[in-house]
């Protein structure tokens, strides 16, 4: 049984401290004054040397945000956030504009090294063997700024633009103007509107017509500074026939207070284009008593604008105190496809309310949802998803499978699907189950000599396999380890 051995090895690699990314980098920061006002919005815009139109866009969003209230429908509970008690901009002092790798502060490089993120172009992702021929371009975002983007020159040769969004606003204003806010409008929801007003950095990807991006692109987000909100904004455009696979990872130090992360990601796929977007979300989840942790309120949406386009979301959510996130697909083009593969693991006092929306507008559009929720400790884990077919979505198809696993009797697993069909020829199928790890499976493993923790890890890995397989290899190994770590101590 090689799979068993593999899991045992993985479990034995698990560090004693449960969250190994919880260190703080001691680096001098340049911060905006605390609180939120029009002046702060102007401050951020000025820091980024933004053109006037961008400032106006932000201010409009800010004014809109002032009239809005926080959404209450998700199954998450937290004390009211004091938006005036946060810093909205923080950047390592050593960073002034785009840099070459040689100029990056060694302290920062060391931080990413410690996180296992390769910022030197010759390196590969730490801990992955047999991947030496696979290269990954990385955009590293530290608090509010992008500190470096690797492989930029090589990508440029292929016509691919991969840079910080702040740089794109200056360098490619026409593309940004055309697409920014076109998938997630500034008025979309409370956190997306806030993000539109104060976003500081994030990645920009543009794949020209017919180009298959020559390597995986990835962004690595790190929140370091205390009391700082991170509001990143990512925009990916795949022109006709283009293809890109994009990965995103995130970590933060262990801190006693909660920190806010409110990102917006917009994807646009034109005719025959394909975007594969993978996330391994490992923000600090808080300690065993539920103290601290990131509030992760994220709006991610892809627009299959062109015919036969495809957008695929894969997420492994193990971190954050609260996750509020619904990567969605608008299936506008005829024959377009949307996919959502998700693993959400919650332990301790974590609260997850996550899922997707598949909006079928075009003819013969297809979507597939595979969601695996694992709740342990005193956590709550909710899948919330919408599948809808509009009048004109003839021949639309959806298949949804969401399974929940409960480990222990103090946690909750919830499934809230919305299925709305206004087209007779649309065929939707949804199935969901909730159960615990079967005693006989567990016994089988124990009888073969596994410890109960190993057995749980093994069975859980089997449970999430369909989703893990969707991840690029580099992330699959990391994701499996993360899941094991997240569940540590969950078996009595």
């Amino acid at each position, binding site marked *: 049984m090689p799979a068993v051995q593999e899991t045992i090895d993985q479990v034995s690699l698990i560090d004693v401290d449960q969250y190994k990314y919880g260190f703080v980098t001691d680096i001098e920061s340049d911060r905006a004054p605390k609180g939120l006002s029009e002046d702060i919005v102007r401050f951020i815009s000025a820091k980024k040397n933004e053109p006037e139109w961008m400032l106006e866009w932000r201010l409009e969003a800010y004014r809109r945000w002032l009239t809005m209230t926080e959404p209450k429908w998700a199954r998450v509970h937290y004390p009211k956030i004091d938006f005036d008690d946060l810093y909205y901009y923080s950047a390592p002092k050593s960073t002034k504009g785009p840099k070459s790798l040689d100029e990056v502060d060694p302290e920062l490089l060391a931080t990413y090294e410690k996180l296992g993120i390769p910022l030197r172009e010759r390196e590969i992702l730490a801990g992955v063997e047999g991947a030496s021929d696979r290269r990954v371009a990385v955009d590293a975002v530290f608090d509010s700024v992008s500190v470096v983007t690797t492989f930029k020159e090589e990508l440029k040769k292929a016509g691919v633009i991969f840079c910080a969004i702040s740089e794109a606003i200056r360098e490619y204003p026409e593309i940004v103007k055309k697409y920014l806010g076109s998938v997630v409008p500034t008025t979309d929801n*409370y956190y997306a509107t806030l993000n539109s007003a104060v976003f500081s950095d994030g990645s920009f990807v543009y794949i020209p017509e017919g180009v298959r991006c020559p390597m995986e692109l990835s962004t690595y987000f790190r929140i370091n500074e205390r009391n700082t909100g991170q509001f990143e904004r990512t925009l990916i455009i795949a022109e006709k026939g283009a293809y890109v696979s994009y990965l995103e990872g995130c970590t933060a130090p262990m801190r006693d207070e909660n920190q806010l992360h409110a990102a917006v990601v917009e994807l646009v796929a034109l005719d025959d284009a394909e975007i594969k977007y993978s996330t391994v979300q490992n923000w600090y989840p808080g300690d065993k008593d539920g103290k601290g942790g990131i509030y992760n309120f994220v709006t991610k949406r892809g627009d299959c604008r062109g015919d036969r386009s495809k957008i695929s979301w894969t997420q492994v959510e193990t971190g954050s105190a609260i996750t509020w996130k619904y990567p969605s697909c608008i299936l506008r083009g005829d024959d377009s496809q949307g996919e959502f593969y998700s693993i959400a693991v919650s332990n301790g006092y974590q609260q997850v309310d996550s899922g997707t929306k598949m909006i079928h507008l075009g003819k013969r559009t297809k979507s597939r949802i595979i969601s695996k929720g694992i709740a342990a400790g005193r956590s709550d884990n909710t899948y919330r998803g919408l599948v809808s077919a509009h009048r004109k979505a003839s021949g639309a198809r959806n298949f949804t499978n969401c399974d929940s696993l*409960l480990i222990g009797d103090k946690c909750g697993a919830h499934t809230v699907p919305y299925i709305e069909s206004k*087209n007779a020829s649309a065929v939707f199928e949804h199935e969901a189950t909730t159960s615990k790890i079967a005693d006989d499976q567990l016994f089988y493993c124990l009888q073969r000599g596994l410890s109960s923790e190993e057995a749980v890890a093994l069975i859980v890995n089997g449970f999430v396999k369909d989703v893990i397989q969707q991840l690029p290899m580099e992330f699959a190994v990391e994701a499996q380890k993360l899941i094991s770590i997240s569940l540590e101590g969950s078996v009595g």
Partner: protein
Amino acid sequence: MNAQPRILRTQAEDTLAAEFAAARTQLPGSTAIASAREAAFAAFQKVGLPHRRVEAWKYTDLRALLRSVPPLALDIAVDGVVPADPLIGFDRARIVIIDGVFRPELSDLSGIEGATITPTVELLRADDARIGARLGAIDDAVVSLNTALMVGGVAIDVPEGVTVARAIEIAHVTTAAIGVHVRNIVTVGADASLRVVESHVGSVGSAYQANVVTEATIGDRAKVVWAKLQAEGDASVHLGTLAVSIGKETQFDHLVLMTGATVSRSQTFVTFTGEFARAGLFGATMIGGRQHADIMLGVDHAVPNGQSRERFKAVMDGRADGIFQGRIVVRPDAQKVDARMMTQGLLLSEESSFSAKPELEIFADDVQCAHGATSGQIDDDMLFYLLSRGIPKAEAETLLVTAFLAEAIEGLGDEAIGAAFEAIAGQWLAARGSEAAA
């Protein structure tokens, strides 16, 4: 987007307030009931008619759907046209409630020895503790409205150990454009057995609004079969609620068939209060034209070792909107619960729609819970199989739709009721077929 200031009252809400103000002193009941009415109306007024921002009413926006409210029926039957009996030929005793008033002289109470039938009005006057006993956990504006305005209805009591020989029909008949608020109370003692058919009909073309709330308490080891037929008049609004608690080792089977009314909502709330109880909950919706039918189901596994099976089927034709919302809750420590919910929508026309929200809310780990949902049209492969055997298309469709609905209707496990309800489904399909031919 999320600002929820209390919107100005709608005309319907204004009318209801005026009606309550005018009727409050005439409504029957003790002083305790009078103050319960006041509290319930205040609760209703605070939130108003349910609208789409109220999650439980997301798909049935009464604020938009109820443009106006007809005058209240108090304790006098209007006695307009009584529609035909849809269950003719089915053997049962009959409690007839016309325009909200229990009419013993029109009822047939033979063959139900052991059971006691009392007009609800008497319970209201006696301040009976069973009024409102099952509604504590239900926060619903329509139920509050019923509590404020309830007048008629009956109480059925089946004492411990009694098996009622004949099925009892509670026939709700509305004959004119009035607002009817009925409250029924059903109490089934331990080891007793009862079959109930709750029917709702009304005169054609009459824009009445019926709000019927039934509270049922089912004792340990009792066996209850309960079938609801919503075949209201074509211009009416039906708002029906059943709140039932089921005791230890009880077997409770419930079926709702929705085919009438222009706007209808049927709510069933089942609470498991004793272990090892089993509930079978079924629904069949058959609507067309511009009908809107919403089934809401709440299953609360409050104790361990419960079992529930839910199967809901909806067939929509014309421009009809069919809705199913089902929620299974397994409370902390309610271990070993086994719950399976299936909901399926079948769209027969281009402009019909189906929405479903089958929810699981699980707080205990040693459970087996599952739900499934599908939406689609008649399966092409199945249809072709029948066509290839020479069965004409209309007949093949009828056969498939009948089979689709039968899976829900037969779930009830009561042959006589099943046959009566399948006949009603058959009539609906035949009417549809002849319309298509015309």
